[in-house]
Structures are given as C-alpha cells and as structure tokens.
C-alpha cells in the first residue's frame, strides 16, 4: 500500500511525498503514469485511521500549486476469483493549495478535478486568486 501526496506546479514536473510499502516516507518526482522516483526522505506517521505526511519546505510548494492524495493497494495476484484486479487506487479531488491552506479564496467557478489520473493542467488556468 502506498499513500502519495501529489503536488503539481502551474507548469513543470510534479512532485510527491509518499509513504511507501515498506513504511518509509520519501520525497520524489511524480509522472503521469503514477510513477514515483525517490529523491530524498521525509516523515510520515499513521495513527489509527489518520495518516500525516510532511511536505518539506524544500519542495517549494506555493499557493498556486495543486495537491491530491492518492492511495494505492497492489498485489502480485488478482484479489478475487471473479475480478482481474491486481490493485485498487483511489484519490481525492485535485485542489488548489491556496484553497486548502487558507491563503486564497475559492470562487464558484474555481475548478476541481476529480479523477485519479487526471493530470490536465488546462483545468487550472484559472486557479483561485489571492484573497
């Protein structure tokens, strides 16, 4: 099981912080095919039904970036006899960091993307303006 916080700048390479299958937490780059490439370490903690993942300042996140959490469970063999699935993936909406951190004001036409694999950046041409 991996838990990934995907951080996308207005342009350029997406970054991510991930609690990996071995329980360690890493910083890295994130590609459109959900590929994570580790570049450093971070901190993560799971307590009960809550996971907290630290995004270091060195990642350089600002309020015009977007953020999404993606959870993926994989196995070497299908999970069920009646389904071909060797994994499952679920993700939160892709939302503006400024929204969530409270330093930008959401408007009624501020877009939210809601697909796990939706990496289109054109949906973010009108990210929330600073409050």
């Amino acid at each position, binding site marked *: 099981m991996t838990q990934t916080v995907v951080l996308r700048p207005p342009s350029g390479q997406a970054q991510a912080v991930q609690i990996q299958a071995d*329980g360690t937490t890493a910083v890295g780059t994130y590609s459109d095919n959900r590929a994570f490439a580790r570049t450093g370490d971070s901190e993560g903690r799971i307590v009960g039904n*809550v996971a907290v993942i630290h995004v*270091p300042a060195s990642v350089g996140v600002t309020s015009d970036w977007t953020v999404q959490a993606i959870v993926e469970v994989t196995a070497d063999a299908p999970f069920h006899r009646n389904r071909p699935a060797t*994994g*499952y993936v679920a993700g939160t909406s892709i939302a503006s960091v400024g929204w969530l*951190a409270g330093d930008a004001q959401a408007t009624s036409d501020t877009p*939210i993307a809601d697909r796990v694999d939706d990496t289109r950046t054109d949906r973010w041409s009108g990210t929330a303006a600073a409050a």
Partner: protein
Amino acid sequence: MLAGSLVLGGTVVGDGSLEVVDGAITRETARFDDAPSELSLRMFTFVPDRDGGGYSAVLRYRVPIVSCTSGGVPSCG
C-alpha cells in the same frame, strides 16, 4: 468499500476506488464488497507547518489502516 473523496472546504467528488490490472487503471469502479478497506479515504486536509516550514497533508480514513512501521522501524513490505 468505496472511497468517497472529500476535500475539506471543497466539494465531495471522486470516482471511488478504481481497479488496477498490471499497473494500469481499468476504469472499472471497484464493487463495494471487493475493494480493500484501506481505500476508504474520506477526508484530506493540507495545512502549513508554521514551525518547520512546508506543509502537512492529513489523510483520514473510515477505518484504521495498517502501519508498516513498529517503533519507527519498517516491519513489512
């Protein structure tokens, strides 16, 4: 168990849990009884770390999830 995804302060949206076959998302939404409970992600918040800089992402699930660490030491995987 389906995973509704909720962004705090935003709108409840999301596809639920999608099936993956050999690393590729198939577009098939997981059936309620099939998907692992670990995918029951319900809430996501993202807050600035006032002390050390950066941010903290907080993921809340409907059920407890398994941690692969014991005392800070990886114990599975």
